[in-house]
């Protein structure tokens, strides 16, 4: 058990290191001069070669690659993520302002899509082969095929423009509010992005829940649960308890694609999260911000995977207490 945890930690450290290295390598591998990535385009364009060299020296980019990497790592260790080209502020600060909103969206939609997806998937599996199962399956695949930004635009169209139920832009009200009114405003403004992201992520959860329960239902213990007199509901709970195992993994791994989806959805709703920040950075060629955001997301996803590995034993007693069988 202890060895297992150590090995897992080791693996994640490795993934983290790879993410950091990639982040270090990207601007250096990309076509063009590093200066183009460090200064706003209009500034970088007007520099003389001499000035360019000065900029490079200022950022330590005239050093050898190993030295640069070492400096990069020690900078990271101090929490130094360079300065935003566009805002002229430390990247770390910018990320700190935005990360909360993304966490709200992503966390909320993970929760919602898991509950709804598992409910639908389990129901389909229990009645598999029926018209209802076929209908749900087709419907979920249809919803899953709608690009998230398209869904977002449609929701805005219906609920904001036509019905005028929710404000379109941002996460905070434009006028000063406080207390409960503020909370109400924040909730109101997060409903549509949350719904969009949830709709976009139900599909995989549903499919995994369905196939997991279908295969659990073939197991002998389900037949036994029935034979020993349990009600249909109890039998169902027996099987679903075990079908939850693969589901937990999918949910947490799915965080990765959700974070990506959030980037697009936040753009549609002008929601001030990390995704919107990435979008703005792309438009402004603000590469330090892009790198910082990427690193933060990578760390987040890696942490989610790690949490899944730690939580899994709580769900599965076979992993929790592997004990040699005794006669």
């Amino acid at each position, binding site marked *: 058990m202890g060895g297992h945890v150590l090995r897992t930690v080791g693996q994640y450290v490795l*993934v983290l290191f*790879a993410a950091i290295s990639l982040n270090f390598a*990207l*601007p250096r591998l*990309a*076509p063009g001069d590093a200066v183009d990535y460090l200064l706003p385009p209009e500034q970088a364009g007007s520099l003389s070669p001499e000035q360019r060299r000065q900029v490079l020296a200022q950022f330590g980019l005239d050093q050898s690659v190993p030295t640069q990497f070492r400096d990069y790592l020690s900078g990271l260790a101090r929490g130094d993520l360079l300065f935003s080209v566009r805002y002229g502020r430390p990247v770390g600060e910018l990320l700190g302002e935005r990360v909360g909103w993304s966490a709200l969206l992503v966390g909320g939609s993970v929760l919602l899509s898991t509950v709804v997806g598992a409910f639908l998937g389990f129901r389909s599996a229990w*009645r*598999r082969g029926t018209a209802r199962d*076929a209908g749900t*399956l087709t419907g979920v*695949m249809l919803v899953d*095929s*709608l*690009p*998230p*930004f*398209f869904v977002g*635009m*449609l929701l*805005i*169209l219906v609920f904001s*423009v036509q019905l005028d139920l929710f404000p379109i832009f941002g996460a905070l009200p434009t006028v000063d509010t406080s207390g409960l009114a503020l909370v109400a405003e924040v909730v109101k403004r997060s409903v549509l992005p949350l719904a969009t992201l949830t709709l976009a992520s139900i599909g995989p959860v549903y499919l995994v829940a369905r196939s997991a329960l*279908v295969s659990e239902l*073939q*197991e*002998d*213990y389900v*037949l*036994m649960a*029935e*034979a*020993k*007199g*349990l009600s*249909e509901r109890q039998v169902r709970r*027996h099987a679903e308890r*075990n079908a939850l195992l693969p589901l937990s993994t999918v949910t947490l791994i799915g965080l*990765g*694609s959700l*974070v*990506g989806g959030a*980037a*697009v959805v936040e*753009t549609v709703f002008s929601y001030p999260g990390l995704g919107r920040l*990435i*979008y703005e950075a*792309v*438009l402004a060629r603000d*590469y330090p911000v892009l790198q910082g955001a*990427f690193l933060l*997301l*990578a760390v987040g*996803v890696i942490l989610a995977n790690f949490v899944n590995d730690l939580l899994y034993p709580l769900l599965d*007693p*076979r992993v929790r*207490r592997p*004990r040699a*069988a*005794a*006669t």
Partner: protein
Amino acid sequence: MTAPTQLSTVDVPEPPAAPVSVVVRRASLARRLGVAGAGLLVSLVVVAAFAPLIARHDPDVPTGVPYDPPSVSHPLGTNDVGQDLFAQLVFGTRVSLTIATLSALVAIVVGLTVALLAGYHRGRLEAALMRLVDLILAFPFMVLVIVLAAFFGRGLLTTVAIIAAVIWARPARVLRSQVLKVREYQHVVAARAMGASPSRCICRHVLTRIAPLTAAQFVRAANISVLLEAALSFLGLGDPNRVSWGTMLYFANARNAFLTDAWLWWILPPGLALTVAILGFAFLGYAIEELADPRLARTAPRHRRRRSPNRPPTTSAERRPAGVLEVHELSVDYLADPPVRAVDRVSFTVGPGRITGLVGESGSGKSTLVMALLGLLRPPGRVVGGRAVVNGRDLGRLQRAAVAQVRGREVGFIPQNAMNALNPAYDVHRQVAEVAALTRDRAAASERASEVLELVGIPAARHRSFPHELSGGMRQRVVIAMAVTNEPALVVADEPVTGLDVVTQARVLRLLLELRDRLGLAILLVSHDLPLVARTADDLLVMYGGRIVERGEAGAVSAAPAHPYTRLLLASFPSLRGPRRLVGEAPGGPIGVGAPPDGCLFHPRCPERVDECRCTVPALAEVGERHEAACLLSEP
């Protein structure tokens, strides 16, 4: 099925391999989705191919006034610079399909190569490759695509390269596990052993086997590629020289098209076009996966909605039951064309407190009979005649709802495979307490569970153990505890000791006898092992081909077996492994599936057969005191 004797016999399938009607239904859903998906994609390909004929304008040059609403010349109006939106929509098909196909192709070629290298050659190379795959899978792939695109630019081929670089890992992982499986197939192992070169093995055997899965993965990759390309374009990271659907939506969003009526012709068409493309690939992928996977095709449905029983169960108080279980002329068919009779007009009685052994080889219909008695027959199995009475309660044709009332309360069940009969997620105490709670409140149920576990010899310290923490013998005891918790009148034990070692077998059987004495249980003991059952049971029923061919008191039957089949069974001893013939069996091949022989069902294998056996069906007839057999030779 754990019975070691697999004999050429009248092929009465016990549970038939594939419930026919069900496979048809599932396959047709997958097929329908596949056809729908292929249809959607074909129409897109047609649009892409004939784009210049369909659209009248060049998508990239202004041909009208900016923000023009739909007109005859511009069916979908124009965008903010006066370009024709319909032309953009039509030509956008080319961009989406090209990028999807190319990215998926590159991703599959890379993924398949990695899968073959890793799966076929194993060793250190595999470890390194799979570590890389895990690494890429751990990253948020859409963010990775966005960041890569931001750094590496926005051409068509760059986009293809970026998408492929991010999505190849999943097909690699899926295909590798398939390669590992195929590699161990008998004929591939044989080919390798005979010195076939690795490349020949891969081409001839492995590739052909994983082709369907590869196709499914390709379609899936294309599906993701369409979405990724659209997302990139929507963020302004698409190919600046080619307008794609994502690009259209990018400009629509940037120009707030949804604030005016323009959403109708600017947002809806490209959004729906994307949905059609993604859905087409999704349907097709699902269909290929489903049709290529025999495991999925074989899954039988669970319950239909519970129908009320034909006859309501009645308790006839005035009639004294002669037995705890009375079965009258029970017949079970597997509905196929023609239906297969698995249990044929079987009648018997289990007396109170008696152990009745039901013996036959696998395929004799005994397990089907047990499932029917418990009301747990799965379609296409169905009780087509007769009825059963349990403890004075007439259960009619054993409909699900009728039997549900006695299951766990008046009838306990010990299944064939106790190893897997326990839920791995719950501790055993809880699983026993559930049964106890059927007839008492929660607190009393918990107490009762401890009591019964104690009774079957599980020490208190192990009551909270999970199934995987217990030995096979202990798990079998737990299952027995569940069966007797509510002090049922009858316990049905289906091969309760098969798979256990001889010492444990003896212990478990002794436990059953003990419980019979203490609780006054009647036990229907089902087994393929006649010598073992003959030592334990009071009465014997011998089944062959769905019929009872001999019955009587255990002592009488084993002392003077009247049916040749019983004599062969008695002379047999447990085999170590593999199919085996009964000692002294007449030579004769297996009988055709679903076509039982005329006359005595056993005559093709009978060492004592006479000509008459071919045409006369023997009925059960008395051969001694309370001893009957269905054999022409034993008739007095």
